């Protein structure tokens, strides 16, 4: 197993862990963190596989795609966090109404 494949598998693990966290947690901040972890997982898979064959140079296109993806993810996270702060301010809780915890 080469380093590239190893990192790609780690990326897959991150994606699935994030998905689990997104569904299970009811606190909005944890959901947002879970989405970020999933995003990191996908980017890791994208960039790790860019150099998976021995003796070939790294493929620059996935690197550029990941930069684009990171910027998009930052924008989305910023919006999500601000929206969450607004929800907390208006409703007093950081959860969805039907999800409220014990």
């Amino acid at each position, binding site marked *: 197993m080469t380093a590239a494949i190893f990192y790609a598998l780690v990326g897959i693990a991150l994606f699935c862990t994030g998905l689990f966290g997104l569904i299970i947690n009811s606190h909005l901040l944890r959901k947002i963190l879970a*989405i970020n972890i999933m995003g990191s997982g996908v980017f890791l898979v994208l960039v790790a596989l860019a150099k998976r064959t021995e003796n070939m140079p790294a493929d620059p296109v996935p690197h550029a795609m990941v930069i684009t993806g990171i910027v998009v993810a930052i924008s*989305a996270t910023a919006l999500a966090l601000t*929206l969450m702060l607004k929800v907390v301010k208006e409703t007093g809780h950081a959860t969805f109404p039907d999800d409220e915890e014990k």
Partner: protein
Amino acid sequence: MVTQTAYLDIPWGIILILLPLVGAMFCFLFPRKVKVLGLITNIGITMSVFGLGWQLLEQGIYRHSVGGWGAPLGIELYADGLSMLMLTTTALVGFAISIYSTSYFNQTLAVRFWPIWLCLLAALNALFLSADIFNLYVTLELLGLSAVALTALTGSKEALTGAMRYLLATLLASLAYLFGVVLLYHSFGSVDLTVLAETIKASPAVWAAMGLMGTGLLLKTALFPLHFWLPPAHGSAPAPVSALLSALVVKASFYILIRLWFTLFEPLMDGDGVETLLGLLGSAAILWGSVQALRQSRLKLLIAYSTVAQIGYLFLIFPLATSVGSVAWNGVAYLIISHALAKSAMFLSAGNLLHYGGHDRIADLDRVVQRLPLTAAAFGLAGVSIMGLPPSGGFIGKWLLLEAALANSRWDLVAVIILGGLLAAAYVFKVIGHTFTQAPVTHEAKSVSASMEWAALLLAVGAILLGFLYVPILSILEISEIAITSGGGL
């Protein structure tokens, strides 16, 4: 003539993408002039769409290699009949919504609405013109983030939680889609649709990509059972935003889904599994959505559940359409555009009613027919199209689907389509019935501006007019490079 060919040479497609962005920048710089700038931009978009349409009719499929590099190194823009219809719908519905919005929002909200709305229009145009699956990811994100921002505009509790749910759902969906793109790129070395269509071969990565991208796009299109985010978001957004969400935003991800399906995945499929599953979910959506719509006591939630149901009809393309250009393909394309017109008319009418009476409880709609006749007419005409009664665009769409279902002996789908129409009639009449009667408690009425009423009415009339435009629309749809095997039929 020189001027005529010069007109044809203008890159209308690129203008469609750049103009709303320029408009958004100007709106951001000059907040006091947002309404004027927004309307000018919309006029420009509508003109460009007609320019592109003419270009398409004269010169066939439109292709543009951004940067001059050509796929797979660069990004390709591509427009055929289907893209053209989606772009035209976006431009016309967008224009009506813009006119409505100039009267609907006060200055504070307008300053926030217009730059984001113009970015959303740019995202839609860029999406319908793109032929690169990674580029589609970026446009999907732009679309999703602007849609969420617009949903949260009023700042009410329901709007904020609805927007938050929508945001999380759309981000999850985008990541699933992106993962699929990653797998396809690393399998075949390109993200261009045309190149992928030539080189794609069945492999575990392709099946995984299909599953991931499909799930992501199904979540964005709110197909049952992944529709949970739609009613709260569409029901609590301001009226013009609900209109653009139901009419345009959910159709964008559906467009990508059918493009990917017919270009990449369908040729690889052996059995019927995916088509059957999607047909089943679509039927469930039609029935579930319609029943839920009947149970609502608030008008905007009723209309939102109606969207869930109507989206189900769109997914009948999977079991019924064997290829691009078949009867069911035309039917679903027709349904997309008539639903866009009719549903936006409904939401705008609901907005008028809300503005007028201060509430949107169906049981308390007080003699609306007398006091807001234009709005009642708009809702009624839109309802005709949603029910699928002749003459209307909705009727033609459903008729074509019925024809395809009968041709394939799919009696189950025939039953679902007919039942869906009956249920739609039930919930439309539920609303219309209340508009004739006096409410138990009379309400203080505020006036509704003429532009708001006319915007709603014109959209509804458009939905009806579509019933008469079958031949021209079909001829535009036929501009496609995938050979039409079985032909349109009628």
